[in-house]
C-alpha cells in the first residue's frame, strides 16, 4: 500500500483523471472530496462490501429456490402452470 501524508487543502491525483481532495479534518473524521469521471463509481467501502455480501448470501441452490417458491406463496403472480 502506498502511504502519503497530506494536509488539509492538498490533493492526491490518481492516473490522469481522478483527484482526491483532503477538505477537512474534524477530530477522527476526515472529509474527502473526489473528482472523477462519471463512469467511475465511488462508494463507501462498507456499502460496497454490504452489497457484495448480500449478493453472495442471496445466491441460491436448487433446493433453496424450490423452497423459496413455496414460501413465497406466489399467488397472484403465478403463471398458468402446465400441469
Amino acid at each position, binding site marked *: 500500500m502506498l502511504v502519503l501524508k497530506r494536509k488539509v487543502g492538498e490533493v492526491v491525483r490518481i492516473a490522469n483523471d481522478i483527484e482526491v481532495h483532503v477538505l477537512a479534518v474534524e477530530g477522527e473524521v476526515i472529509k474527502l472530496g473526489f473528482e472523477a469521471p462519471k463512469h467511475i463509481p465511488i462508494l463507501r467501502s462498507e456499502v460496497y462490501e454490504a*452489497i457484495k455480501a448480500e449478493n453472495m448470501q*442471496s445466491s441460491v441452490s436448487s433446493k433453496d429456490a424450490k423452497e423459496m417458491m413455496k414460501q413465497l406463496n406466489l399467488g397472484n403472480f403465478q403463471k398458468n402452470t402446465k400441469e
Partner: protein
Amino acid sequence: MSENVALSQLIHSEIYGEIQVEHNQIYSFAQGIVGFSHLNKFALLPLEDSELFVLQSFSEEISLMLFPATLSDNHISFKIDEPTIEQLGIKSQDDLVIFYVLRFIDNKPFVNVRAPILVVPETQKGCQYVISNEALGIREPLVIKGEASC
C-alpha cells in the same frame, strides 16, 4: 452432443442442472455485479412457472433470484447516470427492466432496493446499479403489489 449450437449454449446450473440457454436469454454485464466484477456473462431464466427470474452466471455458481420491480410495492425512484445509459445502450431509463435481488431469511422475503439489477432485453445488456440514496436498504422486507404490508 453437437459441438456447437448456433443460437443456444449449454450451461450448468445448480437450479436447472444442464440447461440449454437460448441466445436471447444471455446478458452481458460489462461491470459484473457488485463484488463479482469478473462475472460478465449471465443467463436470465424464468423460474419455473412464475414471474420470477434467476440470474445465473456462466462461469461460477452464482444464481440470484430476481423479483420484478413492477410486481413490488417497495417504492424506489432513481435516475441512472449517463455512463450507465451509454453502457446499456439505451435511449432512456424507460427501456430498462428493473429487478430486485430476492432472498429469504427465516422464511420471509427480502429485497435489495439499493442495488437493483437492470437489464435491457433489446441490447441484452445488464448491470447492478447502486443507487446513491442512502435511505434505500439492501435488505428490505418485500412488499408484493396489492398485498397490505404488515
